[in-house]
Protein backbone atom coordinates (compact mmCIF):
# COMPACT_ATOMS: atom_id res chain seq x y z
CA UNK A 1 0.00 0.00 0.00
CA UNK A 2 0.95 3.64 -0.29
CA UNK A 3 2.18 5.00 3.03
CA UNK A 4 1.92 8.67 3.92
CA UNK A 5 2.44 10.94 6.90
CA UNK A 6 0.54 13.98 8.09
CA UNK A 7 2.07 17.39 7.52
CA UNK A 8 2.36 19.42 10.72
CA UNK A 9 -0.47 21.79 11.67
CA UNK A 10 1.75 24.92 11.34
CA UNK A 11 2.67 23.79 7.81
CA UNK A 12 -1.00 23.29 6.94
CA UNK A 13 -1.94 26.65 8.46
CA UNK A 14 0.66 28.34 6.25
CA UNK A 15 -0.65 26.56 3.15
CA UNK A 16 -4.29 27.37 3.92
CA UNK A 17 -3.87 30.89 5.32
CA UNK A 18 -5.26 32.76 2.25
CA UNK A 19 -8.52 30.77 2.35
CA UNK A 20 -11.64 30.76 4.49
CA UNK A 21 -13.91 27.86 3.54
CA UNK A 22 -11.78 24.77 3.48
CA UNK A 23 -12.82 21.22 2.71
CA UNK A 24 -10.63 18.58 4.31
CA UNK A 25 -11.07 15.65 1.96
CA UNK A 26 -10.06 12.17 3.08
CA UNK A 27 -9.48 9.02 1.07
CA UNK A 28 -10.84 5.63 2.10
CA UNK A 29 -8.12 3.51 0.57
CA UNK A 30 -4.35 3.26 1.32
CA UNK A 31 -4.15 6.30 3.59
CA UNK A 32 -7.04 4.98 5.67
CA UNK A 33 -5.18 1.71 6.16
CA UNK A 34 -1.92 3.46 7.08
CA UNK A 35 -3.89 5.72 9.45
CA UNK A 36 -2.84 9.01 7.91
CA UNK A 37 -5.68 10.33 5.74
CA UNK A 38 -8.93 8.43 6.29
CA UNK A 39 -12.13 9.55 7.98
CA UNK A 40 -10.66 9.47 11.48
CA UNK A 41 -7.57 11.46 10.50
CA UNK A 42 -9.69 13.97 8.58
CA UNK A 43 -11.62 14.53 11.80
CA UNK A 44 -8.42 14.93 13.83
CA UNK A 45 -6.74 17.30 11.34
CA UNK A 46 -9.97 19.32 11.03
CA UNK A 47 -10.26 19.69 14.81
CA UNK A 48 -6.64 20.79 15.03
CA UNK A 49 -7.17 23.34 12.26
CA UNK A 50 -10.31 24.70 13.97
CA UNK A 51 -8.43 25.07 17.23
CA UNK A 52 -5.49 26.71 15.43
CA UNK A 53 -7.92 29.00 13.65
CA UNK A 54 -9.36 30.23 16.98
CA UNK A 55 -6.04 30.57 18.70
CA UNK A 56 -4.52 32.44 15.75
CA UNK A 57 -7.63 34.35 14.58
CA UNK A 58 -7.61 32.78 11.14
CA UNK A 59 -11.35 32.53 10.49
CA UNK A 60 -11.14 29.13 8.88
CA UNK A 61 -14.43 27.37 8.22
CA UNK A 62 -13.56 23.72 8.01
CA UNK A 63 -15.76 21.05 6.44
CA UNK A 64 -14.97 17.35 6.39
CA UNK A 65 -15.64 14.61 3.89
CA UNK A 66 -14.05 11.26 3.11
CA UNK A 67 -14.65 9.43 -0.15
CA UNK A 68 -13.86 5.85 -1.04
CA UNK A 69 -10.97 6.64 -3.38
CA UNK A 70 -9.57 9.96 -4.57
CA UNK A 71 -7.66 8.52 -7.54
CA UNK A 72 -10.87 7.44 -9.26
CA UNK A 73 -13.34 9.71 -11.06
CA UNK A 74 -16.35 7.62 -10.10
CA UNK A 75 -15.75 8.38 -6.44
CA UNK A 76 -14.56 11.96 -6.94
CA UNK A 77 -18.00 12.69 -8.37
CA UNK A 78 -19.50 12.23 -4.88
CA UNK A 79 -17.37 15.07 -3.57
CA UNK A 80 -18.21 17.50 -6.38
CA UNK A 81 -20.76 19.56 -4.46
CA UNK A 82 -18.74 20.06 -1.25
CA UNK A 83 -15.66 20.84 -3.36
CA UNK A 84 -17.54 23.49 -5.34
CA UNK A 85 -18.74 25.12 -2.12
CA UNK A 86 -15.24 25.33 -0.65
CA UNK A 87 -12.64 28.01 -1.38
CA UNK A 88 -9.90 25.40 -1.23
CA UNK A 89 -9.47 21.68 -0.73
CA UNK A 90 -6.98 20.08 1.64
CA UNK A 91 -6.69 16.54 0.38
CA UNK A 92 -5.40 13.87 2.71
CA UNK A 93 -4.92 11.36 -0.10
CA UNK A 94 -1.58 10.28 -1.57
CA UNK A 95 -0.01 12.54 -4.19
CA UNK A 96 -1.93 10.72 -6.94
CA UNK A 97 -5.26 11.45 -5.24
CA UNK A 98 -4.41 15.12 -4.69
CA UNK A 99 -3.59 15.50 -8.39
CA UNK A 100 -6.70 13.62 -9.50
CA UNK A 101 -8.86 16.07 -7.53
CA UNK A 102 -6.94 19.07 -8.87
CA UNK A 103 -7.39 17.82 -12.45
CA UNK A 104 -11.14 17.42 -12.00
CA UNK A 105 -11.60 20.91 -10.51
CA UNK A 106 -9.33 23.21 -12.52
CA UNK A 107 -10.64 26.37 -10.81
CA UNK A 108 -10.10 25.13 -7.29
CA UNK A 109 -6.90 25.31 -5.23
CA UNK A 110 -6.16 21.76 -4.05
CA UNK A 111 -3.40 21.18 -1.50
CA UNK A 112 -1.72 18.07 -0.12
CA UNK A 113 -2.30 17.51 3.58
CA UNK A 114 0.10 14.58 3.71
CA UNK A 115 3.60 13.76 2.64
CA UNK A 116 3.38 10.60 0.55
CA UNK A 117 6.39 8.62 1.66
CA UNK A 118 6.67 5.08 0.33
CA UNK A 119 5.18 1.78 -0.85
CA UNK A 120 5.22 -0.50 2.09
CA UNK A 121 3.49 -2.77 4.53
CA UNK A 122 2.38 -2.76 8.13
CA UNK A 123 5.25 -4.56 9.82
CA UNK A 124 3.80 -4.56 13.32
CA UNK A 125 1.14 -2.55 15.12
CA UNK A 126 1.86 1.12 14.39
CA UNK A 127 5.01 0.43 12.32
CA UNK A 128 5.14 0.64 8.53
CA UNK A 129 8.20 -0.19 6.46
CA UNK A 130 9.19 0.45 2.87
CA UNK A 131 9.27 -2.59 0.58
CA UNK A 132 9.10 -1.44 -3.03
CA UNK A 133 10.57 1.46 -5.01
CA UNK A 134 8.30 0.94 -8.06
CA UNK A 135 11.46 0.78 -10.21
CA UNK A 136 9.52 -0.67 -13.15
CA UNK A 137 11.66 -3.80 -13.65
CA UNK A 138 11.28 -6.18 -10.73
CA UNK A 139 14.32 -8.21 -9.69
CA UNK A 140 12.85 -9.82 -6.60
CA UNK A 141 13.21 -13.32 -8.12
CA UNK A 142 16.99 -12.98 -7.94
CA UNK A 143 17.12 -12.03 -4.29
CA UNK A 144 14.84 -14.49 -2.56
CA UNK A 145 11.98 -11.99 -2.57
CA UNK A 146 13.85 -9.26 -0.68
CA UNK A 147 14.36 -6.03 -2.60
CA UNK A 148 17.95 -4.75 -2.30
CA UNK A 149 17.03 -1.49 -4.01
CA UNK A 150 14.45 -0.60 -1.42
CA UNK A 151 15.77 -2.31 1.67
CA UNK A 152 19.55 -1.97 1.44
CA UNK A 153 20.53 1.54 2.51
CA UNK A 154 23.21 1.64 -0.25
CA UNK A 155 20.91 0.00 -2.81
CA UNK A 156 23.59 -2.60 -3.55
CA UNK A 157 22.78 -5.19 -6.19
CA UNK A 158 25.91 -7.16 -5.35
CA UNK A 159 26.08 -6.91 -1.62
CA UNK A 160 26.68 -6.88 1.20
CA UNK A 161 28.73 -3.75 1.68
CA UNK A 162 30.76 -5.29 4.51
CA UNK A 163 29.69 -2.78 7.11
CA UNK A 164 26.86 -4.67 8.74
CA UNK A 165 27.12 -5.44 12.47
CA UNK A 166 25.62 -8.77 13.40
CA UNK A 167 22.42 -8.59 11.36
CA UNK A 168 22.06 -4.81 11.52
CA UNK A 169 22.62 -2.30 8.72
CA UNK A 170 25.57 0.02 9.29
CA UNK A 171 23.58 3.00 8.05
CA UNK A 172 20.60 2.41 10.34
CA UNK A 173 21.21 0.25 13.36
CA UNK A 174 17.46 -0.05 13.96
CA UNK A 175 16.98 -1.84 10.63
CA UNK A 176 18.16 -5.29 9.56
CA UNK A 177 20.85 -5.56 6.86
CA UNK A 178 18.91 -6.42 3.71
CA UNK A 179 21.80 -8.56 2.50
CA UNK A 180 21.75 -10.62 5.68
CA UNK A 181 18.05 -11.23 4.98
CA UNK A 182 18.74 -12.06 1.33
CA UNK A 183 21.47 -14.55 2.29
CA UNK A 184 19.30 -16.24 4.88
CA UNK A 185 16.31 -16.45 2.59
CA UNK A 186 18.29 -17.80 -0.37
CA UNK A 187 19.82 -20.41 1.94
CA UNK A 188 16.39 -21.42 3.24
CA UNK A 189 15.06 -21.94 -0.28
CA UNK A 190 18.26 -23.64 -1.54
CA UNK A 191 19.17 -20.90 -3.98
CA UNK A 192 22.48 -19.68 -2.53
CA UNK A 193 24.01 -20.35 -5.98
CA UNK A 194 22.35 -17.17 -7.16
CA UNK A 195 24.84 -15.12 -5.17
CA UNK A 196 27.67 -16.33 -7.41
CA UNK A 197 26.24 -14.40 -10.31
CA UNK A 198 27.27 -10.80 -10.72
CA UNK A 199 24.37 -8.49 -11.29
CA UNK A 200 25.19 -5.77 -13.85
CA UNK A 201 24.35 -2.15 -13.17
CA UNK A 202 20.60 -1.70 -13.19
CA UNK A 203 18.90 -0.22 -16.21
CA UNK A 204 16.84 2.61 -14.79
CA UNK A 205 15.03 3.34 -18.06
CA UNK A 206 11.77 1.76 -16.91
CA UNK A 207 11.87 4.01 -13.85
CA UNK A 208 13.38 7.42 -14.27
CA UNK A 209 13.83 7.90 -18.01
CA UNK A 210 11.33 9.18 -20.50
CA UNK A 211 9.16 11.29 -18.24
CA UNK A 212 6.08 10.19 -16.31
CA UNK A 213 5.23 6.55 -16.82
CA UNK A 214 2.08 5.34 -18.50
CA UNK A 215 0.39 1.99 -18.80
CA UNK A 216 -1.78 1.40 -21.84
CA UNK A 217 -3.80 -1.81 -22.05
CA UNK A 218 -5.29 -2.38 -25.43
CA UNK A 219 -7.35 -5.28 -24.10
CA UNK A 220 -9.22 -2.86 -21.85
CA UNK A 221 -9.71 -0.03 -24.32
CA UNK A 222 -12.42 0.63 -26.86
Amino acid sequence: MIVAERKTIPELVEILRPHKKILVLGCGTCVTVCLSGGEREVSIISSALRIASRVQDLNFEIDELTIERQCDNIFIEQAAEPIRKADAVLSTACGAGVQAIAERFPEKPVYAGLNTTFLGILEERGVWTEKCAACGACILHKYGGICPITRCAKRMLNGPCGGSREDRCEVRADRPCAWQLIYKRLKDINQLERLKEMEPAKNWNPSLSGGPRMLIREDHRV
Partner: protein
Amino acid sequence: MNTGNSEPKIVAFCCHYCAYAAADLAGSGRLQYPPNIRIIRSPCTGRLEINFFMKAFEAGADGVLVAGCEEGSCHFKDGNYLAKGRVNTTRQLLQEAGLEPERLRMVNVSAAGSQTFVEYVRDMVETITKLGPARHQKTTAKEQQGAIR
Protein backbone atom coordinates in the same frame (compact mmCIF):
# COMPACT_ATOMS: atom_id res chain seq x y z
CA MET B 1 -19.57 24.31 26.97
CA ASN B 2 -19.77 27.94 27.98
CA THR B 3 -16.31 29.44 28.33
CA GLY B 4 -17.57 32.91 29.10
CA ASN B 5 -16.55 32.85 32.78
CA SER B 6 -13.07 32.33 34.11
CA GLU B 7 -13.73 29.02 35.90
CA PRO B 8 -11.86 26.38 33.96
CA LYS B 9 -13.96 23.65 32.36
CA ILE B 10 -12.31 20.27 32.42
CA VAL B 11 -13.56 17.07 30.83
CA ALA B 12 -12.44 13.91 32.62
CA PHE B 13 -12.61 10.65 30.71
CA CYS B 14 -12.71 8.01 33.44
CA CYS B 15 -12.35 4.28 32.98
CA HIS B 16 -15.33 2.34 34.35
CA TYR B 17 -13.10 -0.17 36.13
CA CYS B 18 -10.90 2.20 38.11
CA ALA B 19 -11.05 6.00 38.01
CA TYR B 20 -14.84 6.12 37.67
CA ALA B 21 -15.16 3.82 40.67
CA ALA B 22 -12.61 5.96 42.52
CA ALA B 23 -14.62 9.10 41.74
CA ASP B 24 -17.73 7.32 43.00
CA LEU B 25 -15.94 6.29 46.17
CA ALA B 26 -14.74 9.89 46.64
CA GLY B 27 -18.37 10.94 46.46
CA SER B 28 -19.64 8.39 48.99
CA GLY B 29 -16.66 9.17 51.24
CA ARG B 30 -17.65 12.88 51.11
CA LEU B 31 -14.25 13.90 49.80
CA GLN B 32 -14.34 17.41 48.39
CA TYR B 33 -12.91 18.33 45.01
CA PRO B 34 -13.42 21.33 42.71
CA PRO B 35 -16.62 21.17 40.64
CA ASN B 36 -14.85 22.08 37.39
CA ILE B 37 -14.68 18.50 36.25
CA ARG B 38 -17.28 16.92 33.96
CA ILE B 39 -16.84 13.17 34.13
CA ILE B 40 -17.47 10.97 31.12
CA ARG B 41 -17.43 7.26 31.84
CA SER B 42 -15.62 5.09 29.35
CA PRO B 43 -15.61 1.26 29.28
CA CYS B 44 -11.79 1.45 29.15
CA THR B 45 -9.33 4.25 28.40
CA GLY B 46 -8.35 2.13 25.38
CA ARG B 47 -11.70 3.11 23.86
CA LEU B 48 -10.69 6.76 23.83
CA GLU B 49 -9.47 8.11 20.54
CA ILE B 50 -7.53 11.19 19.59
CA ASN B 51 -10.72 12.67 18.09
CA PHE B 52 -12.45 12.48 21.47
CA PHE B 53 -9.81 14.69 23.07
CA MET B 54 -9.65 17.04 20.11
CA LYS B 55 -13.46 17.36 20.01
CA ALA B 56 -13.50 18.21 23.71
CA PHE B 57 -11.05 21.07 23.11
CA GLU B 58 -12.86 22.09 19.96
CA ALA B 59 -16.12 22.28 21.93
CA GLY B 60 -14.54 24.58 24.48
CA ALA B 61 -12.89 22.48 27.19
CA ASP B 62 -9.94 24.21 28.84
CA GLY B 63 -8.44 20.93 29.92
CA VAL B 64 -8.93 17.20 29.47
CA LEU B 65 -8.04 14.64 32.11
CA VAL B 66 -7.77 10.98 31.15
CA ALA B 67 -7.91 8.64 34.12
CA GLY B 68 -7.19 4.98 33.58
CA CYS B 69 -6.13 1.95 35.57
CA GLU B 70 -2.65 1.67 37.01
CA GLU B 71 -0.13 0.43 34.47
CA GLY B 72 -0.21 -3.35 34.30
CA SER B 73 -3.73 -3.63 35.74
CA CYS B 74 -5.99 -2.71 32.80
CA HIS B 75 -9.17 -4.80 32.83
CA PHE B 76 -8.68 -5.34 29.08
CA LYS B 77 -4.93 -5.97 29.33
CA ASP B 78 -3.43 -2.98 27.52
CA GLY B 79 -6.13 -0.34 27.09
CA ASN B 80 -4.36 2.17 29.32
CA TYR B 81 -1.13 1.77 27.34
CA LEU B 82 -3.06 2.49 24.14
CA ALA B 83 -4.53 5.57 25.79
CA LYS B 84 -1.07 6.72 26.88
CA GLY B 85 0.17 6.74 23.27
CA ARG B 86 -2.94 8.56 22.08
CA VAL B 87 -2.69 11.14 24.83
CA ASN B 88 0.95 11.81 23.93
CA THR B 89 0.10 12.13 20.23
CA THR B 90 -2.76 14.51 21.03
CA ARG B 91 -0.48 16.64 23.22
CA GLN B 92 1.80 17.02 20.22
CA LEU B 93 -1.18 18.02 18.04
CA LEU B 94 -2.42 20.56 20.60
CA GLN B 95 1.00 22.14 20.70
CA GLU B 96 1.06 22.34 16.90
CA ALA B 97 -2.38 23.97 16.94
CA GLY B 98 -1.19 26.54 19.47
CA LEU B 99 -2.52 25.20 22.79
CA GLU B 100 -0.37 24.18 25.73
CA PRO B 101 0.10 20.38 25.81
CA GLU B 102 -0.30 20.49 29.62
CA ARG B 103 -4.02 20.97 29.02
CA LEU B 104 -4.27 17.24 28.38
CA ARG B 105 -3.05 14.86 31.03
CA MET B 106 -3.28 11.15 31.70
CA VAL B 107 -3.25 9.76 35.23
CA ASN B 108 -3.52 6.23 36.61
CA VAL B 109 -5.77 5.48 39.56
CA SER B 110 -6.97 2.26 41.16
CA ALA B 111 -10.64 1.69 41.98
CA ALA B 112 -9.78 2.20 45.67
CA GLY B 113 -7.80 5.38 45.03
CA SER B 114 -10.46 7.97 45.88
CA GLN B 115 -7.96 10.21 47.69
CA THR B 116 -5.50 9.91 44.77
CA PHE B 117 -8.27 10.77 42.33
CA VAL B 118 -9.19 13.88 44.31
CA GLU B 119 -5.54 14.98 44.37
CA TYR B 120 -5.20 14.49 40.62
CA VAL B 121 -8.34 16.55 40.02
CA ARG B 122 -7.13 19.36 42.30
CA ASP B 123 -3.76 19.33 40.58
CA MET B 124 -5.35 19.44 37.15
CA VAL B 125 -7.68 22.31 38.10
CA GLU B 126 -4.66 24.20 39.48
CA THR B 127 -2.69 23.67 36.25
CA ILE B 128 -5.58 24.77 34.04
CA THR B 129 -6.40 27.77 36.24
CA LYS B 130 -2.79 28.90 35.89
CA LEU B 131 -2.90 28.44 32.10
CA GLY B 132 -6.20 30.33 31.85
CA PRO B 133 -8.97 29.73 29.31
CA ALA B 134 -8.05 27.88 26.14
CA ARG B 135 -8.70 31.02 24.09
CA HIS B 136 -12.00 29.79 22.74
CA GLN B 137 -14.08 32.94 23.09
CA LYS B 138 -14.45 33.28 19.34
CA THR B 139 -16.55 30.12 19.02
CA THR B 140 -19.00 30.57 16.17
CA ALA B 141 -22.71 29.77 16.48
CA LYS B 142 -22.34 26.83 14.10
CA GLU B 143 -19.55 25.33 16.15
CA GLN B 144 -21.50 25.80 19.36
CA GLN B 145 -24.24 23.51 18.09
CA GLY B 146 -22.05 20.50 18.65
CA ALA B 147 -20.56 21.86 21.86
CA ILE B 148 -20.64 20.26 25.28
CA ARG B 149 -23.10 21.98 27.57
